């Protein structure tokens, strides 16, 4: 009897979470998969009729000449046609030069931005793990970029990178008008915004290394590099894998910064996969194709996550 009640209680406690996951994760996943294998067309059939205009108490409204006023009533019938097209949308991905370009942009972005953030984050954490003048203040300042909205950051840097009379205009660098520089600018902004996050987590991890261990290691190790390579880095590895995983998953979804900073241009030089999926779905309303793109992105992210979790388990073992 007691066991039965416990099971019931467990079920009740789990229900909200289950409803949440079903509504906001499982349903959209299934629905978008369904869309990706269909061609969706919507149309509206409309008829209109004139009906008497009535006031709040139901009496006819009269015009200046005392005649009853009329109002147009619109009768609408929305027609949605779903045509099964199999895996056509997935096949399109293979031949679409825009997809190829977006994959290239996203890959370059991920491969440059994420390692840079990790390396800078570790270096800063090592620096701030020592006695430093005004350390608390500087640490607080360092963290500020995390709290800014990426979209706002994009617009802010649009002003900073403005080539004619902008604060960096004197450098003569085509930050936004040259395809290579534009991608570099997007990477730079992302590094500026997310390095503090890496720094914060690494600093916490560094401060979690027992003092006794560090003292003993300092006595045994002849160089700082040896200390870092043999003690600190191995101790940080699980944290690095976690941060890498989080940053990779975020970076692959790159959207806000190019959206605000470059509009995906010049041309498609900064158009990421997420940006292309957004454009395809919500600008061209080719929902099936956009869903197929999103699925591909999801599969890539899942493969990476799985690989990293495996690595994480191994490092713990």
């Amino acid at each position, binding site marked *: 009897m007691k066991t039965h009640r416990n099971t019931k209680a467990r079920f009740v406690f789990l229900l909200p979470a289950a409803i949440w996951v079903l509504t906001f994760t499982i349903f959209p996943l299934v629905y978008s998969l369904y869309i990706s294998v269909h061609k969706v067309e*919507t149309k509206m059939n409309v008829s209109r009729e004139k009906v008497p205009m009535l006031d709040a108490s139901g009496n006819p409204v009269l015009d200046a000449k005392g005649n009853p006023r009329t109002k147009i009533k619109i009768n609408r019938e929305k027609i949605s046609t779903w045509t099964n097209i199999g895996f056509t949308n997935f096949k399109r991905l293979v031949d679409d030069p825009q997809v190829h370009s977006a994959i290239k942009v996203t890959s370059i972005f991920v491969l440059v931005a994420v390692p840079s953030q990790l390396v800078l984050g570790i270096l800063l954490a090592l620096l701030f793990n020592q006695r430093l003048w005004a350390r608390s203040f500087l640490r607080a300042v360092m963290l500020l970029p995390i709290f800014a909205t990426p979209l706002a950051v994009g617009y802010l840097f649009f002003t900073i990178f403005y080539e*004619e009379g902008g604060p960096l205009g004197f450098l003569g660098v085509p930050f936004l*008008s040259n395809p290579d520089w534009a991608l570099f600018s997007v990477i730079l902004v992302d590094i500026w915004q997310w390095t503090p996050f890496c720094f914060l987590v690494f600093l916490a991890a560094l401060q979690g290394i027992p003092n006794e261990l560090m003292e003993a290691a300092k006595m045994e190790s002849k160089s700082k590099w040896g200390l870092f390579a043999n003690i600190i880095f191995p101790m940080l590895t699980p944290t690095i894998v976690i941060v890498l995983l989080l940053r990779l998953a975020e970076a692959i979804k790159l959207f806000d910064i190019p959206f605000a900073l470059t*509009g995906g*241009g010049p041309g498609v030089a900064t158009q990421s996969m997420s940006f292309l999926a957004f454009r395809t779905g919500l600008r*061209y309303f080719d929902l099936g194709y956009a869903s197929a793109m999103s699925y591909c992105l999801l599969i890539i992210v899942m493969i990476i996550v799985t690989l990293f979790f495996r690595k994480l388990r191994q490092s713990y073992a």
Partner: protein
Amino acid sequence: MKLFKSLGLFVSACLTCGIATAADHHVKWHDDGKVDLVMEDGTTISTTREELGSLFGPDQKPFDGVSISVTVNSGGPKGGISGPLYSFRPIWEELTGGKLEIVELPFGEHYTKMMLDLRNGTGQYDAFMVGAFWYGDIVPNGYAFPIDDFMTTGEYPQWTYDSMPQSLKTLHTWEGVGYGVLNDGDGQVLYYRRDALANPEWRAQFKKEYGYSMPVPPKTWQQMLDISNFFNGKNWDSNDPDPDSGTVLHLKVGEQGHYHFQSLSASFAITPGPELDQYHNVYWFDPTNMKPLINSPGHVAALEFLQELHKTGPSAQVGWSLGEAWDYFLRGKSVFVFSWGDVGSLCQDTSRSKIQGVCASSILPSSDTYYDHETKKFVKTTNPVKVGNTTGGSWHGVISNYSANPEATYSLLSLMAIKPASIWLAQNGWTGVDPGFTYQFLEPQGEAGLGDYLDAGWAEADVKDYLKAYYETFFADTFLPYLRIPGSFEYWDILDKNLSATMSGEISAKQALDSTAKTWEQITDRLGRDQQLGYYQSAIGYK
């Protein structure tokens, strides 16, 4: 002390009354049938009871308690297209008793938000200030409300399509049915610095370098490129000590940069002829089979020419939107810009412009060589035809079929379309409303008097050039056809991205246009070739 207190109370009471009076009386009804519409800043537009329609009167509030919402490209209370809604809101609210919510959306988001509302049937918005190229996605799907019946009842503010040139009228209707309410007339013209091109020293130097007299205004694009090259890098403007440019362009992807290419390429890529047929007066697609023409040798030549022209301006313009390019010209930094009517009227705004009085305009030049689609050869001509255009959105109101209050919504849009309102809007650059209707052109082509424009702060030489340029642009014999078919937004977006890649040097002109044509074929096949062909033929008047 008591006296001061009483005086203070009296003054504050007067002030309160004054504010209340100003706020409550945006409409003044006169006994002789005249009506003054007074804006927040005191600007008054005079109309008549007849022109306002029978629904409105001193004691009538025909839409009391009704709330409507209208979407518009964001620009704020003094922004282009959005500004007039703010100006007319208090007037309309007083006339009708209704409430107007203005929903500002960034240019890049407006279409998306509108389509989401319509496709999902949310009905959040009563009307949209649309670009004419959106018609293909909203009218055939049954999302737009036809307004012909409202126009004939006499109940609503009076305006007519007859005041529009045919080229603009077409953009407000679909298969003969009216959907759009008159507001803005878009087309691109050439703006140039009158003082620089008239300067005898520069003229002599130009003749020496190029071997012919500098034509003012340039008649061909090739002449314009020469002039642009000539002035680029020289400090010909005295507003600052730095070197100035030849031509400034707005080329940022997703920010209307492709319109430059459309307007410029028309005279390279259109084969002029007396009728529109498979080969003549066509630009976008072959009207017999929907095969794209966008990568024809004429189009490619035009894009290569645009690349050359781009070299005579600041390299940063690849990332510039309209505002940046316009400001560059208004600050006296370039000899040429070809853009919309906003530039001409912004030239007169001395808070923003240093070039009032020297801001000349003309119809766009033509190419001295065009591609003949029939013979598949380039033709060199000494007398190129002028090609008109309605490039742009001609932003205007269209009522949603999901609106619960189409009558109230129409009463707002039509109030802004009455003749005196429309004249006022065209005369004031910040409104973003460009001229295009008969009563906005000067006599003898139109009905407007020069004095009206001079009173509004225009320099005489500027306004004469400006209105002549627009008249010639909208009434030209040869015309750049407007693309109004389902998927126009997507077709243009693909073109825009490829053009931007070309202008930034990523790919060649031919690669860009070949890629565009290939993607257009896929779009056409996806949307249905036969359906698209039918709409295209109807849109360009192919029989």
